[in-house]
């Protein structure tokens, strides 16, 4: 069964639409980073990176990199007027202290109670955690952006995570290639789904019950 689905860029576009004007946001390494390029016009969003920069901008032109000016993914960045630098303790005071409006992270698995697993696939290889365990407890809202299923087609949205947790009951919204869902005391509540995918089809590729408590909207994104 091949379902119509959003590309990674389209998921990022969809997540970008929900970021309000004036927000302070941390975007995780990888797919979440792409959200910045789809920021709707007329909104001012200030991006935070764990290594001590607030208010950074686009990547510099190739050859223009300054390697003292990088993001948490160790990619070269630029700064916007009004940016600031600070030490790592102050940076995580912003995170842990609840000063960020939103953190958007990738996920291996998300459970219906909001548990997130995104740092370890188990015992093989070198483990690495970075700032993910801090971010899930700090931001006012923690959203996940991910393909709806693994590369093998297995559900990433589950009753319980089977991989090591990053944080318990921390995710509140999920943007996937097939749907937008909120996590509520009921579990996964479907807010939007891709047209052409039925509720039953979506349930089949989701590892926990989907709930509906208001009209489900069409999940649409432009070609980006």
């Amino acid at each position, binding site marked *: 069964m091949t379902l119509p689905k959003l590309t990674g860029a389209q998921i990022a576009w969809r997540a970008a639409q929900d970021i309000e004007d004036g927000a302070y946001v941390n975007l995780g390494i990888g797919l979440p980073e792409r959200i910045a390029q789809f920021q709707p016009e007329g909104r001012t969003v200030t991006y935070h990176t764990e290594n001590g920069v607030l208010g950074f901008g686009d990547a510099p032109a190739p050859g223009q990199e300054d390697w003292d000016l990088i993001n948490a993914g160790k990619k070269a960045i630029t700064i916007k007027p*009004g940016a600031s630098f600070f030490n790592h303790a102050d940076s995580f*005071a912003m995170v842990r202290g609840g000063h960020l409006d939103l953190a958007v992270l990738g996920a291996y698995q998300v459970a219906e109670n909001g548990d997130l697993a995104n740092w370890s696939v188990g015992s093989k290889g070198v483990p690495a955690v970075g700032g993910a365990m801090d971010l899930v407890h700090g931001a006012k809202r923690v959203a996940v952006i991910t393909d709806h299923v693994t590369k093998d087609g297995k559900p990433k949205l589950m009753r319980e995570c089977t991989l090591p947790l990053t944080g318990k009951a921390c995710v509140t919204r999920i943007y996937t290639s097939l749907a937008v869902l909120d996590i509520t005391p009921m579990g996964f509540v479907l807010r939007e789904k891709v047209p052409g995918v039925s509720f039953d089809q979506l349930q089949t590729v989701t590892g926990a019950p989907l709930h509906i408590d208001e009209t489900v909207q069409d999940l649409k994104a432009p070609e980006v």
Partner: protein
Amino acid sequence: MVEIAAQIGDTLSDIPDGARLMIGGFGGSGAPIELIHALIDRFNTTGQPKNLTVINNNAGNGGVGIAAMISAGMVAKMVCSFPRSADAVAFGTAYMNGDIELELVPQGTLAERIRAGGAGIPAFYTPTSFGTDLAIGKATEEFEGKMYVRERWLKADFALIKAECADRLGNLTYRMAARNFAPLMAMAAEVTIAQTRTLLDPGGIDPQEVITQGIFVDRLIAVPSPEQEEALVRDEVNYA
């Protein structure tokens, strides 16, 4: 996102009765006199806000600033390290009359509790006050052969602070020793209100020299010629 107010009173109009206020300054250095006096003006006009808890290193001097708030009857409780001084008559009178509550906190513990409030650290251990009356009722524990007292974070509904420069995104710098508690309070309050001598466009402060990042600041008001509490006290000014 920071709001830039046209009138100083606009920055303070939603502070309710019973609010917890952190007020920057050590003695007069860094005291946001204009913000405090604007709050007294509101109280004198509307009867609000009252029953305030005020967190500051001291408890006001002479007849201005926090001392004037106390004299006006706005303050139910002070949280501070050093409420006693030659000029702290307003607090002393209210305290001896039983009209005001006092939570006395060692200065370093006060600073660290406020930082903890801003940094999402609900409790920490400090050697300060172990074995003293100020540790009574607090959990203690030994680490590496030394005894420590457990202290809790301190947060507030509003912080009132005084900056030297601000940009329109809320980034702040401070003048000399006027910095003291302000950067910590900006982190620990739900709403941080800063008066600033100069207000610049974004980029007007070198990103390496920002002391308080805009993420911690909610409201700005330009006060180009701020009063200095110590000078007012020496001039025996009474704000009433």
